[in-house]
């Protein structure tokens, strides 16, 4: 199996919302995120995210692994699957409850 791709994530400072990096800004749904197949590009984005910390937009940015499955992105770690969707025990809450959420996840 090939090395997994990566996505850059963080939490928005003001409201704690989980966000994903997309070309210099932050989106709320994993499906919209920029996917890095190149480790160097991923690290560069992580570095660039420092500015978002300085600007008080986000906290704790980090990279995590994803795989492309059918038409969706699936994080390798369970934690990120849940973080991208919402609590598994409350499908009515979190990102999974919004219309923008891709149900194929």
């Amino acid at each position: 199996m090939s090395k997994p791709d990566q996505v850059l994530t963080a939490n928005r400072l003001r409201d704690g919302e989980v966000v994903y990096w997309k070309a210099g800004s932050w989106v709320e749904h994993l499906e919209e995120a920029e996917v890095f197949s190149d480790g160097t590009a991923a690290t560069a984005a992580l570095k660039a995210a420092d500015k978002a910390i300085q600007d008080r937009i986000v906290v704790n940015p980090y990279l995590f692994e994803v795989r492309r499955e059918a038409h969706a992105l699936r994080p390798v770690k369970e934690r990120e699957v849940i973080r991208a969707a919402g609590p598994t025990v409350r499908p009515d809450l979190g990102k999974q409850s919004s219309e923008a959420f891709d149900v194929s996840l």
Partner: protein
Amino acid sequence: MYRYDEFDARFVAERVEQFRYQVERRLSGELTEDEFKPLRLLNGLYLQLHAYMLRIAVPYGTLSPKQLRMLAHIARKYDKGYGHFTTRQNIQFNWIKLVDVPDTLADLATVEMHAIQTSGNCIRNVTADHFAGAARDEIEDPRILAEIVRQWSSLHPEFTYLPRKFKIAVSGSEHDRAAVKFHDVGIEIIRNDKGETGYRVYAGGGMGRTPYIGHVVGDFVEKRDILAFLEAVMRVYNQSGRRDNIYKARIKILVNALGAEEMRRQVMREFDEIKAAGTLAVPSAELDNIARYFAPPAFEALGDNAPEYDAARASSAAFRAWSDTNLTPHRAPGYAIATISLKPIGGVPGDATHEQLDALADLLDEFGMGELRVSHEQNLVLPHVRKKDLPAIFAKLEALGLATPNAGLVTDIIACPGLDYCDLANARSIPIAQRISERFQDLARQHDIGELKIKISGCINACGHHHAGHIGVLGVDKKGVEYYQLQLGGSGAEDASIGEILGPAFGEHEIVDAVERVVDVYLEQRSGSERFLDTVRRLGIEPFKERAYAGWAFHI
């Protein structure tokens, strides 16, 4: 219950403004996240998996109708319509925004509530027996001491930057419903030979990565001296607790490193000095003052006979089932203690909706009850209910989905939020609780099994108190997959014990079956009226282990 005077009110109001300024400085960049994090934790604000989580203090688990209504309001205005009651008698809101927290705190302050020191490396919420003031076996209401300790520990200048968190619990009876031996400091109210009440003080208990049962460091501390004694314990800990490794920083590690005797010696040295200085003496006038707030309500002179109650038991199977399990004898004739289960079959343990919180406030008002309690087992308690009111109250609870007749039974499960909510978790705990609950839901079967406390934690931090579970379940991560370790024989009561691990962890789809097999062994092997815990203690874990792993391919 305690009522703020102008000093308490001002204190909380100023703390709100202090926090507001801290948030401003964070948002302006004057404080980095690294600097802000401990400050926000000191106000109970975590950054969790999905959002910020705010943990609001419920001192010794006591809430008034006004406070319940405010919590309902907070849930609606700032969160997603519900709250979660914790294993330390507090309430958590999972979807708070940082920018809303100062206003949330300001709203809470109007009903004498706050989030002070519900997290961080400081002295946390002081918990106490949820049957305080009502239980028949009570020596003295533990909330009196708990309130005195709460005030003394609030923004204590010397002990706000401890090596790690510090949890204190108080029990007022021989039957420990506050799990004092599993706390950093546990206090038992006891009587000496002369019939005087005083305090037995334990130190060094704890759950987490390395569970310990506390050692007695004060055999009989007089009431007047208790704050001096606690200050002595805290000082020894603050000075000598480890700060090099967060997994070795609790007082339990220090007590076990020094040994109980050396710990006592160091504490006594400090205590003697502090006591001689006199500034921390608790005058009896102070004790009386505080005690007045916890005076029981004026109980009506009722006979223990309540025809309405008897009639309802005779005519309603549902009421009979509920009153069989969810009532505890009350010290006043004609009264009962009622447990409101927050563990509906298949539900999320410990959660309550804003509608339920409001309705409970109405219920308290309607029946002239001034308070309800939160237990560390994530249920609620009506401490003083007239038996004759029970049928009517039951009907209201039923309509609210709060009448599950399972207090203390196998489906009365304690579970931490786990990987569904928590940034620290390795595995989900709530779905396991739900599936166990569904598996065992048959009421006759639950009664047959009897008392069985299942506690589930989603990581080694043990917020689900799994070490103290008759059956404890610990969620672990093995190569990205959720597994569940099973342990048996723990107890958080006065017979405190740490559960023993059975063996290798079970997969997500195996654990419920494993639990069922273990329960089967109990049903087959129990003797007389033994509870599950008793049978485990009598037989040891071998027979349970054998059955739990029956059919596994490899030899255990």
